[in-house]
């Protein structure tokens, strides 16, 4: 086994790095920059049962060491995605984590049933935490009972393992994590974006047409690391960590906090080569650190261990 290989439910990854959902489309654009076979996995853009137009523009605004987005789950609908977007990815030997969203439980069930039947979808990710759509989603992301109910319902219809993507905009994220684990989730993705806002002082109005948006990028990294540190000590399912990852060092930090794989979002916009660069650097860094497989680092910050890192 190579230093970088990791094994998560449904996702046999040659390295632990995947682009984050919504930050990589369905892969076609970044395939013009590099061979997608480089990646550990690909998390594709959220699918909903129906076509969604998303929010009006402007949809992005920049903040200190971060950005706000309010795309609003724009997508061509799950049928279109299954028929026209996913097949294109078949030529790559990379597992796909299919992000799904909806307004009602039925929406999630429909999206999960359809997308999990795609031959190259290896796991689904329940986006119960999109801060940019008013209805439904938000409740699922902050009420442990509702999140658990949803997880159970989706588990019943999904042909592949189910990951639940948790919102950081809650008082107690551990409670959320424990609830969905008990309901049968195979893994967790954390964190989605923090709700934020930026006001243009020349106009006096929020920059985003949607007013609020989701904060991502290096600014939120300490919040993500803390939440993964807390949750990983309380659950036994693996965590895909994300939130501000820019470098191989960041990946190590997320593993030490408790992650078993990571996703890279905002960094792709700053550098389209972010993912392959991080993967190469990570291999070097692990070599220097004398780590034979990166999984050894999962939870290092709270597990007691014998051999300290030099």
């Amino acid at each position: 086994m190579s230093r970088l290989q990791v094994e998560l439910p449904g996702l046999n990854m040659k390295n632990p790095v995947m682009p984050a959902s919504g930050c990589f489309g369905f892969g076609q654009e970044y395939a013009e920059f590099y061979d997608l076979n480089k990646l550990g996995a690909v998390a594709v853009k959220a699918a909903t049962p129906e076509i969604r137009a998303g929010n009006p523009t402007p949809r992005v605004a920049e903040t200190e060491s971060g950005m706000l987005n309010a795309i609003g789950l724009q997508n061509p609908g799950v049928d279109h995605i299954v028929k026209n977007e996913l097949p294109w990815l078949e030529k790559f030997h990379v597992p796909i984590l299919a992000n799904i969203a909806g307004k009602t439980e039925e929406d999630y069930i429909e999206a999960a049933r359809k997308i999990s039947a795609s031959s190259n979808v290896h796991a689904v990710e329940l986006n119960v935490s999109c801060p940019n759509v008013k209805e439904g989603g938000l409740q699922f992301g902050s009420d442990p009972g509702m999140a658990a109910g949803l997880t159970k319902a989706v588990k019943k219809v999904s042909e592949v393992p189910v990951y639940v993507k948790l919102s950081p905009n809650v008082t107690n994220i551990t409670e959320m994590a424990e609830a969905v684990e008990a309901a049968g989730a195979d893994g967790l993705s954390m964190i989605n974006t923090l709700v934020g806002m930026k006001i243009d002082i020349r106009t006096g109005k929020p920059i985003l047409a949607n007013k609020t948006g989701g904060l991502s990028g290096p600014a939120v990294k300490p919040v993500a690391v803390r939440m993964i540190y807390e949750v990983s000590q309380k659950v036994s399912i693996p965590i895909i960590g994300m939130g501000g990852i820019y470098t191989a060092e960041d990946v190590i930090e997320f593993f030490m906090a408790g992650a078993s794989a990571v996703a890279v979002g905002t960094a792709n916009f700053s550098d389209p080569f972010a993912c392959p660069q991080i993967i190469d650097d990570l291999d070097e860094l692990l070599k220097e650190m004398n780590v034979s497989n990166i999984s050894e680092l999962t939870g290092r910050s709270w597990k007691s261990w014998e051999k300290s890192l030099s």
Partner: protein
Amino acid sequence: MNKENLTVLSQEKLTSKIFKMKLQGDSVKTMLTPGQFVHLKVGERHPVLRRPISICSVKADILTIVYRIEGQGTKLLNQKAAGDTVDTLGPLGKGFPLTQESTALLVGGGVGIPPLLYLAEQLYRQGTKVKVILGYRKKEEIFLVEEFQKYGEVFITTEDGSYGRKGFVTDAIAEAGAYDVFYTCGPKPMLRAVETASTKKGYISLEERMGCGVGACLACVCDKQKPFEGKAYVKACRDGPVFEAGEVIV
């Protein structure tokens, strides 16, 4: 698609806020189409997003851009000196198609003016007659006029009347006379006004806030006037920034 660290050759001040910058590198040779843009990384880790700037002119491996200092990003760009490098992604997007008609009217306002220069040059070289209307706020903010005059007749408007015709670009359309096709770039109200004022075929270039700049994040979408093949939107970064007038809702 190209990513390259272009080398800064020079920075030149055109007005109090507008600068001309020359950059050199191999990827510049692929920047063939006017209306395309480059996506510039202006800081090492901050800010997190790149900045879209139009191609203003290309000579061999030298790219010229003209930018206005707006906020943090353009301020950082302005701090680059000869010899420094700028991480540049491009050329990106779809540019202006070169018309086969005989007379083209180019209408630009503010920082929508720079991409029209490269267009004017290419139209002129293929024999198209070029007329140019450039709109500024006031005399002190005028830039690039002499460069345009090499390729055709230039009409100038200023909002305060301190130079040329007083008013907006649309006020000069009558004076410019007959044309077969128009090309326009500038603030949205201007684009709307030009679209409305003209009955001819035309092309507009849109400025939308961007995330990725390559078509992956859906930050920069515009609604189509008439959904086509089920698609109700286009991406300014990839399907644009240039669209046929009437294609998208401005």
